[in-house]
């Protein structure tokens, strides 16, 4: 197992936000955690690499390649972040520091985790930007606000996969994007996953993306995991009441008859 959580609980002061969550992720697997906002999925994701805000505390264990991350020192944990475990966040505006160029932030990260010379660092950064389909030189010199949301998320994926981490944690990376851009970003993430063979922990509230991309899925409600399994299994025959609600709330987009739309359009033109 690449990652396995056993009875992970997260507290805010005395209040329990995440209640004894257990979850396992194999090497190269895409595991989705679905649930509505406030169900504790983001906090769970943050706890893996020790990114919880100070007022939250975690109990239980999170094994990464057999070592319990909760026992790690701050320094060891820091060197793991970005190199072995990367994050991609929801709010693309917060993915990069606004007043630094994308390039300097790539460079900063390479400085932290490698001892490559300056020239090699730049080559590596440009290469990884190219791999996500961005014009490398121009993006390298741009500030985050000069890029569109989709471009920023692409750059974030480039950065997250640059050091070939074993685990990528994507916390609703497409929620802030429009649906066309979102699909492109997800396909890119999938492509990078198959190229690097990393595991993906994918946090989402959108069951449609679960169906399409993930190998396994966990459904979370009120800080607990209520159902786990293969997506076609879980979504086709939901056992838990909450999962049934989620599935029935899905808009039946795939069943809209195409001809109806065309005919209505013709009517309108007359």
């Amino acid at each position, binding site marked *: 197992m690449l990652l396995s959580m056993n009875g992970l609980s997260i507290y805010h002061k005395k209040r329990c936000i995440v209640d004894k969550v257990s979850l396992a992720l194999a090497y190269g697997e895409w595991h989705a955690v679905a649930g509505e906002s406030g169900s504790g999925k983001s906090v769970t994701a943050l706890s893996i690499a020790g990114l919880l805000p100070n007022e939250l505390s975690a109990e239980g264990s999170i094994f990464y390649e057999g070592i319990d991350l909760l026992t790690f020192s701050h320094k060891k944990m*820091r060197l793991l*972040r970005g190199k072995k475990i990367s994050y991609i966040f929801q709010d693309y505006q917060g993915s990069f520091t606004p007043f630094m160029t994308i390039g300097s932030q790539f460079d900063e990260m390479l400085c932290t985790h490698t001892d490559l010379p300056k020239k090699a660092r730049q080559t590596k950064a440009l290469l990884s930007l190219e791999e996500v389909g961005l014009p490398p030189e121009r993006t390298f010199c741009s500030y985050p606000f000069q890029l569109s949301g989709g471009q920023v998320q692409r750059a974030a994926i480039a950065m997250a996969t640059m050091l070939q981490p074993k685990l990528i944690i994507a916390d609703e990376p497409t929620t802030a994007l429009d649906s066309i851009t979102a699909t492109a970003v997800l396909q890119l993430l999938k492509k990078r996953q198959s190229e690097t063979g990393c595991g993906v922990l994918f946090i989402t509230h959108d069951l449609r993306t679960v169906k399409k991309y993930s190998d396994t899925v966990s459904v979370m409600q009120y800080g607990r995991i209520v159902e786990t399994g293969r997506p076609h299994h879980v979504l086709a025959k939901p056992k838990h009441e909450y999962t049934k609600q989620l599935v029935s709330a899905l808009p039946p987009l795939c069943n809209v008859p195409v001809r109806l739309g065309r005919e209505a359009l013709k009517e309108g033109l007359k």
Partner: protein
Amino acid sequence: MKMIANRLLELVLFLLVLSFISFAFMKLAPGDPVRYMLNIDDVAVSEERIEELREELGFNEPIIVQYGLWLVRFFQFDLGISYMTQQPVTQELAEKLPATLILTFCSVVIMTLISVPVGSLSALYKNKMIDQVSRLFALIGASVPSFWLGLLLIQWFSVKLGWLPSMGSDSILHLILPSVTLGVAMAAVYVRLLRSSLLESLNQDFVISAKARGLSSFRIFWFHALRHSMVPVITIFGVSLGSLLGGTVIIEVLFSYPGIGKLVVDAIVRRDYPVIQGYILFMGLFVAVINILVDLSYRYLDPEIRLKEGGST
């Protein structure tokens, strides 16, 4: 470039209006400067002499003519002659200015030396002991009258201990007490400001992203959070650079420090109008130039403003 040109145009207009208002105010103000001038030696003067001087100074012309004449001289950098010292006002101001600027600079240095470390520690150790202490310092510091703090420092360091001189500006030692007084008073404000600004920055998403990339907390603090929180701090600093000069007035009087602040207070007490007017115009110019410089410094700190304006011109 266009922005700078616009600002300069505004500046000229502003100075014109300012000069007219101050000119009008002075004419309306009570007290006859001619009598003040002649009474300096405390000798009785005849009405004839007063009338003579009045004519000589052009005080019998209509205000608008007087203003026009004054304006013409103003553009020749002639602000008139001080009634008190019989020196040209421009020269008086130029002589006293360096002392004030040095004092201001030293107090800003002291303010920075106090507020950056204290404010940063306070934000990093929020609600810990060190934070409580520094907040108490900030609260008390903001409530202490600066001239009183200066008096206490004089009492302690020059009267009791005899370490430092309290009056004048003959050596670098004379600078210590006034600039510490000013610096401490200002630091109280900036500790607080930097703390709250840093706390906000440290909560930003981009800081979490930087953390998730594995950057060291040292790097995150100095290169990401601190710079972000400097924008509001610089704004306030720029806006208050002028009031810093106002603050030096009180401190200059307190320490008998020969800068332009003391010059203008002396002039006010003696109704030395040309000097007061020179001071107003000079300050107007100074504050306006500072404001322009502050705007320019944002453009460095925040590339978004810089690039947007670059695109539009």
